[in-house]
């Protein structure tokens, strides 16, 4: 037996290349004869294109120019609904919408040429906010501005109001958030009539891009090859957008006959690509005298921007998570994604759940306040327990004990003592300190029947030298895909970690193991890697050249013998939905997720009475994610997610003007630096899970859900003023404090 590999902090597979600078990202790659590509974009939010003219001082014959008329296939980014054009033809629906493409060998001249294309428009009245979209005073998408609606109904909520001791209402909003991967979107496309189209890029989902390029370029599956190169951060921001930039580079490559590189600069990336959906959630909850939820209505609305893209799926996850980690005997949840004339909003870690969970966790504190119990007690009394059902009536079969998680988080954060101390010290202090809790869950994998439709396939290859290669389209962009999938294969085959490698995601070489999204890679794909590895072992055993209990050396010899005798040795595994899993896509009822990750986060904040800035002083992140397969990587995921959550709560504000981001630079869109963050203390609790490879559940998105509500609850605790929106900037706090103090003054005057 080799040492157990799963559960240890095996070093990152591609780590050495990353610390030496040898790792090659898309902008580090050049090709002979390569041109650079650029995009001419709409300057207005909504209107029709009248004319396009070119500054005569440029030698336009030297440029490759592509408009919608040059598209060989369908002018759309194929995804869910094919409503988004690759290049606007006659109408534009958002600022920065791509209209025309240019390529040239000189990137500096190219930049000047983009400004030398003049487009005349007839403007139409734009819609910039959800409320205006809902009013339908302008219909900008479909017949009613609505991309998608969901309705979840459990029990009979109309019956609960009469028996309620309290009816608690609240409205909560969250802003757009930029993924802010440090590497901007970028691709290189190359076309050859015989070979077809090859696309290298910084991306999460090679087969999404593959599908989009087939439709756009009118090419068969064999004539499109998509290769993921080292990717410098993604967080969802490279889930759907790469299909757009890949389409653009491909059109230029097909027309020019030369390889074309398109890499956005920061300003273009921030202004033109997707962000987290802004949201508004309304809660109306019936509560009994003990603070137990009898039932309620939740109205969850997100701003999808100008085209449908992934909004329906983001809405789905947000709607299903809207009831949080609590038991709702009766509930009605309405979800709606509406259109506005801003660039489409898209995937970002958490995918709708951070928005609706922010509302849920703020609302729990509001319920506590109305009922007159503590934020701890209100949660304790409403937590989901094994055997109870979620809002979609999924029975909790996991042995989860949320009260135990809560107790441990309170202990780790020294909650009670600190809260008492702050209550005593705040009145005489320039720093107002407070404590806040968020308890929540995050579903692992695709929602409902999603995994069944994906039907992911994974391969494991035994090589002549006895090493093993994992074949998946699942991508590495920092989370640790390469490392953990290799650990799983090594464990399943009783091989040293060093004997297992992972193939570069290349649609010509690897099967479609599905997109790298939805916290599904370790749980779903990892389980398939384990199955495929077992299949490989079974093949060798069935051939009579390996015993079921074998040493790595025996495996090496058997593998070598098999390959020399029979050629390539590969084993594949395809996803099959577990039996008895029920999901109704129409009624949105049933087993929404194969499993949930659970967490209780505690934030300690301090608000400075002079500057009104709020800072997080300490952060405890305790979660139950099943078995932790690689502690260092898992901790890294949690800390990184919490840091992004702190940014979402306190720093990261997208400033909009006429549907365009005004602060699209790192200078004025502020993400947390090393000096801004508190100690982020990460703890895991393993409570057992039947799903996933070696008992692992999804982990990547979970940490994005909890920080914003925990922090805002803490600020509310510190100042005794309810805040219901993020981001919460010093000016927002100042305004609220000023209003409260003037009210207090007025009140004092009356006496």
């Amino acid at each position, binding site marked *: 037996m080799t040492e157990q590999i799963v559960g240890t*902090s095996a*070093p*990152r597979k*591609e*780590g*050495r*290349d*990353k*610390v*030496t*600078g*040898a*790792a*090659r*990202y898309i*902008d*580090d790659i050049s090709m002979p004869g390569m041109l650079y590509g650029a995009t001419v974009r709409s300057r207005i939010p909504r209107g029709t294109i009248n004319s396009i003219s070119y500054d005569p001082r440029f030698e336009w014959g030297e440029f490759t120019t592509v408009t919608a008329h040059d598209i060989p296939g369908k002018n759309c980014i194929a995804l869910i609904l094919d409503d988004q054009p690759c290049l606007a033809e006659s109408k534009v629906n958002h600022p920065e919408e791509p209209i025309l493409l240019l390529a040239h060998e000189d990137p500096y001249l190219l930049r000047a040429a983009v400004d030398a294309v003049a487009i005349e428009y007839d403007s139409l009245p734009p819609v910039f906010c959800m409320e205006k979209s809902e009013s339908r005073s302008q219909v900008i998408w479909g017949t009613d501005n609505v991309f998608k609606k969901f309705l979840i109904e459990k029990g009979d909520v109309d019956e609960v109001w009469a028996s309620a001791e309290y009816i608690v209402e609240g409205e909560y909003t969250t802003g757009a958030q930029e*993924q*802010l*991967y*440090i*590497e*901007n979107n970028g691709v290189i496309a190359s076309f050859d009539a015989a070979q077809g189209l090859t696309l290298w890029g910084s991306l999460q989902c090679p087969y999404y891009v593959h599908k989009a390029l087939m439709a756009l370029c009118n090419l068969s599956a064999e004539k499109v090859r998509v290769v993921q190169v*080292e*990717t*410098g*951060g*993604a*967080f969802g921001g490279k889930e759907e957008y790469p299909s757009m930039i890949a389409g653009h580079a491909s059109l230029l490559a097909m027309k020019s006959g030369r390889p074309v590189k398109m890499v956005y*600069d*920061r300003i273009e990336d921030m202004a033109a690509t997707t962000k987290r959906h802004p949201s508004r959630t309304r809660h109306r909850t019936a509560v009994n005298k003990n603070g137990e939820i009898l039932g309620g209505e939740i109205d969850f609305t997100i701003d999808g921007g100008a085209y449908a893209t992934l909004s329906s799926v983001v809405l789905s996850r947000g709607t299903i998570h809207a009831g949080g980690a609590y038991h709702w005997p009766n509930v009605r949840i309405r979800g709606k994604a509406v259109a506005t004339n801003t660039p489409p909003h898209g995937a970002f870690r958490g995918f709708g759940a951070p928005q609706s969970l922010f509302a849920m966790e703020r609302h729990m504190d509001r319920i506590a306040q109305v009922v007159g119990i503590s934020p701890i007690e209100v949660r304790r009394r409403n937590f989901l327990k094994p055997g109870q059902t979620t809002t979609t009536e999924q029975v909790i079969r996991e042995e989860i004990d949320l009260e135990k998680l809560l107790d441990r988080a309170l202990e780790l954060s020294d909650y009670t003592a600190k809260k008492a101390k702050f209550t005593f010290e705040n009145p005489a202090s320039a720093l107002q300190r407070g404590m806040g809790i968020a308890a929540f869950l995050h579903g692992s994998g695709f929602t409902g029947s999603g995994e069944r439709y994906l039907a992911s396939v994974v391969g494991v290859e035994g090589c002549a030298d006895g090493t093993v290669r994992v074949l998946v389209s699942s991508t590495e*962009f*920092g*989370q*640790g895909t390469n490392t953990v999938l290799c650990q799983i294969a090594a464990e399943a085959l009783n091989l040293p970690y060093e004997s297992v490698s992972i193939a570069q995601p290349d649609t010509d070489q690897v099967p479609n193991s599905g997109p790298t999204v939805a916290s599904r890679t370790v749980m779903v794909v990892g389980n398939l890697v384990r199955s495929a590895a077992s299949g490989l072992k079974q093949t060798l055993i069935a051939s009579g050249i390996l015993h079921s209990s074998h040493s790595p050396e025996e495996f090496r010899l058997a593998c070598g013998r098999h390959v020399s005798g029979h050629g390539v040795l590969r084993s594949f595994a395809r996803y099959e939905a577990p039996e008895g899993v029920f999901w109704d896509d129409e009624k949105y009822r049933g087993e929404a997720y194969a499993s949930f990750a659970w967490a209780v986060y505690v934030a300690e904040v301090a608000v400075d009475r002079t500057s009104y800035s709020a800072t997080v002083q300490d952060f405890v992140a305790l979660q139950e994610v099943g078995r932790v397969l690689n502690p*260092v*990587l898992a*901790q*890294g995921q949690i*800390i*990184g*997610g*919490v*840091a*992004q959550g702190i940014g979402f709560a306190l720093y990261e504000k997208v400033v909009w003007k006429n549907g365009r981001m005004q602060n699209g*630079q*790192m*200078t004025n869109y502020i*993400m*947390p*630096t*090393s*000096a801004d*963050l508190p*100690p*982020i203390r990460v703890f895991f609790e393993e409570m057992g899970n039947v799903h996933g490879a070696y008992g692992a559940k999804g982990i990547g998105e979970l940490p994005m859900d909890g920080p914003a509500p925990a922090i805002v609850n803490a600020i509310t605790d510190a100042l005794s003023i309810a805040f219901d929106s993020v981001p919460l900037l010093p000016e927002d706090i100042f305004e609220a404090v000023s209003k409260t103090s003037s009210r207090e003054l007025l009140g004092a005057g009356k006496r």
Partner: protein
Amino acid sequence: MAAPHETDGRCVISFTVNGSPRTVQVYPMQRLLDVLRKELQLTGAKEGCGEGECGSCSVLVNGELVNSCLIPALQAEGARVTTIEGLSKGPHLSALQKAFLNCGGAQCGICTPGMILSASHLLSKNPEPTLDDIREGLAGNLCRCTGYMQIFEAVAQAAKQSIAKPEAERPENRA
């Protein structure tokens, strides 16, 4: 790039890069980042923002940490430049590089070269930094993946190592 032309405004710059003398023909205001990446194929320094905010393009010039996206090539004339490629000697990683690997200091890796050079600069000035020194020392390098904690741990771990330090951390290379 086309062959240099006498009248195209380019000038000759000689400097030392990772210990080797190099001569390039560049436009005087060309960014040092582009000279390193395009003329010398040293692609370890990355462009994250192009305005000196993210620190992904960090390199050492005469032992000082700079954002190479803000430095005109002309300013590198005669200077000693160290990039991430100069930090390890053959297969041997520096103590910092090893610590980044062990502690999870690199995730997507795009900020890592700049972050390691920044940490290397910090340790050259302050071999025994406190946690606050590390936080402050790295505040010019943005990382979106890690939330920094494991980077702090890596820098602290490297500081504790007594193994031979690479060129950039040697006292003679300090400013």
